[in-house]
């Protein structure tokens, strides 16, 4: 059996928070979330590098973060989600460094007894991550390098939870 990144199952519900250069394995992350017998629902979100952003053909992304503060911000967001919804295990993985088109950027996975809590918590974590975790994306295209601006739609999305 594959080693679970969620430490002992008999203990309280687990949290995985990781900021890393390496790619992540959605299959292994899902498998760990699937193993909680009191969870009837697993919701996962995966963000990928798109080939096109606001009309620009993208070659790659570079993602910078603030080591230490980023992990702390992600923990805070997960903690808030656990206080708002009856969810069990949570995993948040975000990559940094250079990422090519189609590569995986971010994973958020949540399990819960019922589907609505799992969907809501997963969306909430993504919305807050987008506006309050210190990551910055630079887009590399044939037109050169460009730091991305925060989207108004992301600010709106995170405000709907408050």
């Amino acid at each position, binding site marked *: 059996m594959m080693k679970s990144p969620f430490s002992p199952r008999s203990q309280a519900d687990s949290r995985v928070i990781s900021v890393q250069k390496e790619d992540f394995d959605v299959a292994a992350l899902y498998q760990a979330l699937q193993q909680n017998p009191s969870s009837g629902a697993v919701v996962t979100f995966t*963000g990928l590098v798109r080939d096109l952003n606001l009309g620009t053909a993208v070659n790659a992304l570079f*993602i*910078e*973060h*603030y080591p*230490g*503060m980023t992990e*702390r911000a992600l923990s805070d967001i997960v903690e808030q989600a656990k206080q708002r919804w009856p969810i069990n295990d949570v995993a948040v993985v*975000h990559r940094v460094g250079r990422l090519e088109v189609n590569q995986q*950027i*971010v994973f958020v996975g949540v399990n819960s007894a019922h589907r609505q809590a799992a969907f809501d918590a997963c969306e909430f974590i*993504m919305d807050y*991550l*987008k*506006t*309050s*975790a*210190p*990551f*910055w*994306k*630079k887009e590399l295209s044939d037109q050169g390098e460009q*730091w*991305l*601006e*925060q989207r108004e739609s*992301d600010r709106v999305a995170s405000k709907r939870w408050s």
Partner: protein
Amino acid sequence: MKINVRLFARLREQLGDSVQCECPEGATVAALTDQLASRGDNWAQLKSQEILCAVNQQQVSGEHRLADNDEVAFFPPVTGG
């Protein structure tokens, strides 16, 4: 007191990774920002509304009072995910 300033994303590219500052006892983040802004053109952007500031990895506002050896970070709005 000694303050360690760190910069991220486009601020880092324009101003450098980090800089050491001397501040008077009890200075606020706003006072430190003014002091840095006075270094010249590119530094003035630290005073922009949209630039965020964290002290010891917690986001703070301009009124926050600094202590010796604080790590102060300035950065643009975040764009991860």
